[in-house]
């Protein structure tokens, strides 16, 4: 009987083909919009994570306990050599680079600014960061101890140009002040305020000498083969490299604002889905009620010949189900077509800054099979659920009353 009801309901939705197609297009458009928005948000999220991790931070970092909170020069990594060796053997690690980090002030001929000084290990830096490709002027470090790379906003603030002399002043490990002159060899742009306005990069050897660290380092930035490796705060990376006074952190702990953004995106999508599908559901209910009212006599006959109310209700719900399946097919086609095009061309928002991250490149929507599956199931389920109310109405129709009214 159920199969026959399925068959009857499928045929019934095509009695008024135009209405079914229009309703299907409305629901399908809603689904396609959700798929596209979700993919765009995923793309934005991926872009944010990429900007946050690939450009400089890395997907994981190791520090001495307390360094991140205080940035104290003396909090260098314990037994750094052993850790570097261990990282070199770690199969989950695609690259790693040690760093020196210190508060400093930089001055040009016209300006003086507080910055964070980064000592860059030239042999490993390119395996983790995008400093090389972030250069908008000049070139990457050649090994000359006088070279300095500035963020473009800092260069603008300092009114410094390529080849200009910059003086860095730092507090050394023993408390004394030290200054050194550098020549601007490159100007970079990462798209984040922290790096573009408040950071300078010099050769690690020069930084070591300037700060008198004698080979000690403050940070090891790590890139994994799979970014998920660093996301779990109790994962293998954190377990393995935390200890001996050091602490290993993944990118969600290092950049919680980016992780929060992912959460915010999920909540925004849920709200949007609620509003959009809420609008759609009333459209479906209206359409199904129209269909039920048009067929009052027919439902009356069905009941008269012995169809139980539950079967009448089931038939209306099954019609809604088929409408959902049809609409989902339309929605998937429209959504996939849009996504396939935009995932190749990207969508440019010009240059906007959001949560400290600059979106100056096109955003590429990320097609997620799981999202497509979930939204499709949700659409079918919701459309079928929208049939419950009209279904109950049809089931409760009094046969003789309905026949009388339909005459």
């Amino acid at each position: 009987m159920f199969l026959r009801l399925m068959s009857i309901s499928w045929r019934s939705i095509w009695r008024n083909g135009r209405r079914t197609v229009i309703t299907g297009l409305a629901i399908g458009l809603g689904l396609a919009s959700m798929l596209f928005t979700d993919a765009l948000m995923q793309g934005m999220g991926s872009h944010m994570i990429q900007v946050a991790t690939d450009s400089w931070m890395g997907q994981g970092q190791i520090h001495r306990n307390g360094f991140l909170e205080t940035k104290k020069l003396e909090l260098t990594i314990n037994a750094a050599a052993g850790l570097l060796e261990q990282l070199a053997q770690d199969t989950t690690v695609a690259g790693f680079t040690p760093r020196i980090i210190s508060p400093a002030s930089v001055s040009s001929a016209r300006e003086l600014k507080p910055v964070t000084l980064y000592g860059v290990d030239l042999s490993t830096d390119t395996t983790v960061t995008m400093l090389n490709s972030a250069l908008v002027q000049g070139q990457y470090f050649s090994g000359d101890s006088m070279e300095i790379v500035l963020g473009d906003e800092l260069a603008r603030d300092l009114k410094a140009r390529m080849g200009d002399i910059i003086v860095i002043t730092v507090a050394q490990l023993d408390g004394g002040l030290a200054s050194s002159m550098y020549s601007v060899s490159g100007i970079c742009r990462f798209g984040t305020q922290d790096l573009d306005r408040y950071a300078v990069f010099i050769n690690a050897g020069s930084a070591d000498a300037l700060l008198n660290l004698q080979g000690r380092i403050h940070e090891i930035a790590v890139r994994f083969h799979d970014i998920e490796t660093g996301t779990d705060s109790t994962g293998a990376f954190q377990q393995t490299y935390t200890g001996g006074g050091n602490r290993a952190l993944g990118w969600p702990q290092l950049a919680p604002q980016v992780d929060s953004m992912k959460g915010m995106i999920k909540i925004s999508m849920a709200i949007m889905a609620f509003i959009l599908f809420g609008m759609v559901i009333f459209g479906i209910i209206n359409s199904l009620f129209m269909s039920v009212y048009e067929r009052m006599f027919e439902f009356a006959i069905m009941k008269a010949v012995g169809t139980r109310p539950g079967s009448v209700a089931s038939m209306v719900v099954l019609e809604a189900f088929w409408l959902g399946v049809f609409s989902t097919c339309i929605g998937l086609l429209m959504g996939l077509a849009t996504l396939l095009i935009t995932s190749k061309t990207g969508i440019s928002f010009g240059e906007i800054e959001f949560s400290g991250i600059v979106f100056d490149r096109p955003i590429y929507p990320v097609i997620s099979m799981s999202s497509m599956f979930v939204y499709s199931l949700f659409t079918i389920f919701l459309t079928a659920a929208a049939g419950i109310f009209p279904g109950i109405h049809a089931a409760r129709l009094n046969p003789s009353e309905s026949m009388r009214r339909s005459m």
Partner: protein
Amino acid sequence: MEKSVVEARGVKKTYDDSGVPVHAVRGVDFKLEPGEFTALIGPSGSGKTTLLNILAGLDTPTEGEIRLSGRLISSMSGRELSDFRRDHIGFIFQAYNLFPVLTVEENVEYVMLLQGIPSGERRRRVMEVLEQVGLQDYAERLPLKLSGGQQQRVAVARAMVSRPDLVMADEPTANLDSATSGELLDMMRRLNEETGMTFLFSTHDRIVMERARKIVVLRDGKVSEIREK
């Protein structure tokens, strides 16, 4: 002694839709014995359709009791009544009222599907009854591809295929020309004689009256006369 197929005692029906009571049926006592071929006649507004609906359990009387095949239908729950109609009553309506999305075969098969009869048996009985109404070659057609007379013959087949105790027909010839009406009535009378199934018509069609063996005249919601031929 065989039980009456229909037994109505003191049946009254009053509608109060617009605040003004309308007495559609004003106390009907009525019996229908097995195998009868009876026409319920009367002018428009005399309460024929209302009485037919009440007798079929599609509507509830304001007063009185109805027994169908010996069972008191006023004591049945909605579900019991639904199952009772499915198993004991066949319906034929004025406007054919076949399910437009189902083929002739599927329309005829529908009630047996509700009864849970196995598909082989269903198919056999459908073909048998379609042959009886002369539509065996139209099994795969949709109702809208048939003439009015053919559609009403499908309705007759649908009403009879589950072998009910009683077939109720509400103005079955109202939408048919007289030649087709005559053919349809002759066919129904033949089936009545062959199967012994009881038929009750509500009508004011002369063709039906001519072929009925018993005529119950309804006037102002009351049985005014019963004529046996």
